[in-house]
Structures are given as C-alpha cells and as structure tokens.
C-alpha cells in the first residue's frame, strides 16, 4: 500500500505540490490533470529523484523517505516520460540496468541478474530486439523497453510517467494493456500519469485528479471521472456518453 501524507514540494520559492494526500491500496492508480499540475513532480518525489519539502511517503508502512537511494530503488521502479540515452546501449543492456539496486556496485551484474533481465524481456516480448541499440527503436518499442526495465528492477511499486505520450493509437493500447497485465500477474502496485481520461476509464482502478499542485478529487475511476469533475479539472465543458457498458468522456467546448 502506498500512502502519502501532507506532501509539499517547491522549486526555490515556487510551490509545486501543496498538501498532497494520497492512498493507493492495490491495482492501477492514475494521476490525471492538466499540463503543469505537478503529476511528474509527484512521481519524481515518490521515486526519490526530487526531495519533498515536507510530508511522508510510506510503502507498506515503511517510510521510503528515510531509505537510501539503493534500498529505495528496490521498492520503487520508475519509468520517466522522456528517456534519452546518449550512448546506443542495446535493449538488453538497458533492461539489465534496471537490476542496479540489486547489484553490488563493484562486482557488477551476476547470473541471476542476467536471468531476471531475460525474463523481463520475454514478458514484454522484446526478445528479437535484445541486441539492437535502444536508440534505433520506435517510440512504442522504447516504451516497452522501459517497462521491461521497471519490471527487472522489480519494485513493489511501479511508477510510469505518461507512458502513452508520443505514441500512436494502437501503441497506447498496447502499453497500457501490458502495464495492466504486469500489475495483475505480478501483483504490483502501479501509479501512472495520463492525459486522456478515456484511457483512465478503461485501464485504471483509482483516479487522482491533480490541479495546481493539489488533489481535487480521488476515488474509484467511475465515481471520479464525471462531467462535473472533468469540467472543473480542465476548465472546459465535457459530456459523458455510454456505449454498451463502456463510458467515454468527450470535450465539447472551452469555457
């Protein structure tokens, strides 16, 4: 269980996150909100890349803020929104780097690290790309490689920062289906940030609406994604439609 209490974060004087309270007990949670709402910042705080000014982040009752980098990375996997490598490491090498928190720095990866890496690559069906430079992959393949890395890192909590950004219609579906599968099969706690409320409706169990650094609403997806809440979140007029047993939200006009 992920529990965040009274979390504050600021860059110098500018306050980005204000009194964030968040609880995720299982399944896939989704941060939804406009650009600049603080979604990425919140994920980076949880991943330990940024240091919050105040507040607590607990994972299964353990205070992750108090752990050192290495210990923390054993519990929290993180895949960034933008990932640029300057050196053309192969897919295998990138996924192997996910094992870092389990590796002795001076000894380097061992046999079981290589095995875990192979397993993660198999799970994501990336075996044919194993020895291909990461830099030559397509956007969708890159995302899948990063998910494989998060899997080989094997954190109980997995954070994906906008895993669908820059992806085509089909690849968005592929990526979220894979994340969903991993969450169920390996019983991981997953927190993603998304831009499309419709993707949240089809894939996420819980939604946190984030606006200007505070959590507007949170709860089960169907309860939170309503016309009223979405209008408030994005400052527009939307309409919720039902198609069969699925629900979609469509933007109608700007306010």
């Amino acid at each position, binding site marked *: 269980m992920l529990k965040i209490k009274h979390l504050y974060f600021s860059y110098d004087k500018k306050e980005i996150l204000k009194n964030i309270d968040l609880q995720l007990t299982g399944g896939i949670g989704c941060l939804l909100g406009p650009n600049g709402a603080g979604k990425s910042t919140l994920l980076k705080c949880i991943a330990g890349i940024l240091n919050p000014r105040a507040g607590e982040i607990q994972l299964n009752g353990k205070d992750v803020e108090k752990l050192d980098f290495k210990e923390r*990375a054993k519990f929290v996997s993180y895949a960034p929104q933008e990932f640029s490598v300057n*050196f053309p490491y192969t897919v295998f090498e990138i996924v192997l780097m996910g094992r870092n928190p389990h590796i002795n720095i001076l000894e380097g990866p061992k046999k079981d690290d290589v095995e875990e890496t192979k397993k993660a690559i198999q799970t994501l069906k990336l075996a044919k790309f194993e020895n291909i430079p990461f830099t030559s992959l397509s956007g969708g393949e890159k995302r899948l490689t990063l998910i494989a890395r998060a899997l080989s890192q094997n954190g109980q909590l997995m954070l994906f920062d906008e895993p669908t950004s820059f992806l085509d219609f089909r690849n968005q579906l592929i990526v979220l289906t894979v994340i969903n599968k991993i969450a169920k099969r390996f019983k991981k706690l997953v927190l993603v940030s998304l831009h499309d409320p419709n993707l949240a409706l089809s894939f996420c169990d819980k939604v946190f609406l984030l606006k200007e650094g505070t959590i507007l609403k949170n709860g089960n997806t169907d309860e939170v994604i309503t016309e009223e809440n979405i209008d408030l979140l994005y400052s527009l007029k939307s309409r919720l439609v039902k198609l069969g047993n699925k629900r979609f939200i469509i933007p109608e006009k700007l306010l």
Partner: protein
Amino acid sequence: MKKFLTLYILVFIGSLFAGRLLLNPLHFSTLSKTILLDVRLPRIIIASLAGAGLSLAGLAFQNLFRNYLAGPNIVGASSGAAFGAVLAILFFSFNPLYIQLSSFIFGIIAVTIAYKMSKLVGNGIVGLLLAGIAVSALFTSMVGMAKYMADPYDKLPTIVFWLLGSFSGMRWKDLLFLLFPISIGITGIVLLRWPFNILSLGDSEAKSLGLNVNIYRKVIIVLAALSVSSATAIGGIIGWIGLVSPHIARLLVGYDNRRLVPASAFVGATLLLFCDDIARSIAATELPISVITSLIGAPLLILILARRFKYVKN
C-alpha cells in the same frame, strides 16, 4: 579482452627492440642490457600507464558528461598541470622532480576549483562543464603569460618542449613518482565500470535506479583527476589519447562499460606506447609525443566517426 592483452604484449615486446640502437637478442652486451632494462623498459611502462590513465579519464568524463567529445582536460586537469609545470620551470632550475610535483599539484588544484565553482554556475553536470571550461581557459592563459615572460634562450625552449609532451629520459625513479597516483586512478575506474553505465543515463535516471549520484560523481572526478594530473606531470601535455582511445574501444567491444572500460585501458596503453615508439625511433632526435599522437589520433578519429556515421545512416 584476451585479444587486447595479446596486442598490447606484442607492442610491448616490439617496443623493447624499437629505437635507434638495434639490439641483437642473441648477443647481449652490457650496454644493450643497460639500454633495455634501464632506459627502454621503464619508459615503456610509464608510457603504458600514462596511456591507460588518460584513456580511462577520457572515458570517465565521456560517461559523466554524457558526451562523446569530453576529453581528459574537460574539467581543467591538463591545463592546471601545464601551468604547474611551467611555474616550476620558471622559478626553479630545471629539476624534473619539482616540475612533476608542481604539475601534479596544480592539476588537482584546477579540478578542485572547477568542482567548487560548478555549484555557483549551474546544476550538476552542466555547472561542472561550464566551470571546467572557464578554469581550463584561465590556466591556459596563465601558461601563455608565463611563456611570454620566460627567458627566450634558457627557459622558453624547455617550456615549449614540455608542453608538447615527451617521455624522453624516463627512468625507474620517474615511475616511482607516477605509480602511486595513477594506479589509484586506473584501479578505481576499472572497479567502478558497472556504475558508469548507470551514471551515463543522467542524474534523474541514476537516482531512480538507486545510485547515489553525488558521491559516485565526486569519486570518479577524483580518480580521473589523479590519472590525468599524474600522466601529465610525468609526460607533459599528451593530446588525443584520452579522446580517441575510448572511441576505438567502442568500435571493438560496444558501449557496455563492463567491457568498454578494460578495453579502453588496453587501447590507450597500446596506442600511446606505439606513438612513443615512433617518437623515439623515427628521426635522429626525439620528437615530441603530442605531435605524433595528434598526427595519428586525428585521422583515426575521422575514420571512426565516418564508420559510425555510415552505421547510423544504414
């Protein structure tokens, strides 16, 4: 890695016999024994260590700055060392020990200044890059000033020759000076080859993968500074080895630092040793080493980049 070792050993053995005095392995006179054991052997070992140290420092900075064009001088180590040497030449009568000591100390000082200043001008690695460029320029200009003020008949030729680099006249006692700092540098970098991969992904990535970036960055800068400063102190300014060797190694073993680090060490050692052989045997007098390393290094780099470009295009 066996291939690299074999190639190195071949060049090593060849180096023993390279030179103006031809040695007949079947007829060893006392003179040839002296030349072999007291002149050539220490020089070969020193050139190898310096080559390995420079190459590893170059590779370390390329990973740290995530940039192919980073060389050993990127945080000012060589410029500082050059200034230290020039200072010693100006103020003391020509004494190799003083020159080496002063050069080494100023190399470390330059890196320390760059590191301290980096916090003022930017975040993390960008700050270090900017500060490094500034410190490097500062020491280079002071070297220029010293050259301008130096006695043109007595001191200036020494300074110019030193700045072009040379391993001429190296004996076992010079190795003693070099051995300690450069061994720490080389061994440290070789031991830290795995975290190089993680560091080369950038700060945020490395942190989220559980690496304490600040500590490792500091340690690696210290190790690289030790290598560059001691190599420069002993051999003068040696260009191109630190930049080109990691590129050659990449072509041969790929990008994973677990293989790339030892490969770069061997390539650097082999390449500098080979260049030094040319420097001491091609002409009637010794040629400065930097002349040879640039002459060989620059075309090599173009060749490598052309090959990579072709690979990227396809």
